[in-house]
């Protein structure tokens, strides 16, 4: 289940989190992270992202995360959507 497409989920809007993934042969999870609440929540956001990636069995990923103070359900949803789109597995949507 590799990332085969460049994909984005979420937006630059406040309370949202923008997640981008791209195909790469590099190993491991490479997450470029920025957040408006990075000082207070940086670690917990990253932990949340990793937990979604674990659940989705993502081992290798190139990811950019740009957080604007999203709450946990939003973080989880956006990561899931980005990965699903990156794998080309999204259902019920028009690309």
């Amino acid at each position: 289940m590799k990332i085969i497409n460049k994909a984005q989920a979420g937006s630059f809007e406040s309370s949202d989190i923008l997640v981008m993934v791209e195909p790469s042969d590099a190993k491991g999870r490479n997450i470029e992270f920025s957040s408006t609440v990075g000082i207070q929540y940086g670690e917990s956001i990253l932990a949340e992202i990793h937990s979604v990636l674990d659940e989705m069995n993502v081992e290798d990923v190139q990811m950019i995360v740009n957080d604007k103070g999203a709450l946990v359900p939003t973080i989880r949803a956006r990561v899931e959507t980005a990965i699903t789109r990156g794998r080309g597995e999204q259902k019920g949507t028009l690309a």
Partner: protein
Amino acid sequence: MSDNCFNFNVIEASLNSSFDLKQIKKITDKYNIEYNPKEVDKTIILETEDGDIVGTASTDGNIIKAVVVDDKYQGSNAFSVLISSLSEELSQEYKHIFIYTHPKNKQIFTGLGFKCIAEAPPYYSLYEFGFSTIDKYKKYLETKLVTSAKNSACIVMNCNPFTLGHQYLIEKAAKESDAVYVFIVETDKSLFPFKTRWDLVEKGVAHLDNVVLVKTDDYLVSKVSFPSYFLKDKGASEITDNQARLDLMVFLNHIVPVLNIKKRYVGTENYCPVTSAYNKQMHLLLPEHNVEVVEVERKSLKEDDYISASQIREAVKNDDWDSIKDRVPKTTYDFLVSEAAKPIVEKIKNSDSRH
């Protein structure tokens, strides 16, 4: 849900519809933003649920430009909706996205998470977001760095195709410097594709051991940093000057420090008004930042017969192969007459492009 968080509708404008264009022009004109439907791939219009026009933005390749939001909606989520909506599509295709905008919007775009890579007040500033950012490009440059070199020079060339004139300039620079970085313009808007141009230069400088070829990515004389260069039939204007300054600021901010460049070589431009305007700005800007500009008279065969790549393309068009032979290195000539060059030669013959 703040005062400033609206549920806007994003509408893709039909660039053939005079109604849509009128809507777009109304707001771009109001805020003095250049907008030309011929120079965009796509334009979106942002509306409120009642159909009030909030703003617009366009894409041109991986560039987002002509971004306007009505003053009434400044401070709202309008900018982030516009940019999110465009970036989503662009990010599926490109490794990085640029925003080309007025410097007064700096806080807005840096607030969104874009990085400002250069500013050329009063009109232009350039922002970037994505996987392959300028920081990655700088890492690439580091791999090209000749650490022992103290007196390093650079030349930026399109080489469409590589001529004796190019070779002459590189040789001169190589003689006068410890290392010469030759940047080959990577934007693929020329008749000779980037890969071919690169190969021809590589072959043509094989005899020089202190010359390093470098890719420009989107950062030097690119469609992003210097769009004027790639427009058909456009004379030099104030816009060109400003764009040139932006391009040169990217060079000064990000490239010069990594490669420790002291000089930039450039051939005298006799033909192209855009290139000569660029050179003029170079003379104005670079010395201020401790980079010497070395302008070298072009190599000529006889008086007033300077070698230029456009001449070569013209000659290809006219099947004037003798003239070509006198003006390009053997490596280039051999390529032009090879089987591999056929499609390019064909393209040149059918083209009226400046490039």
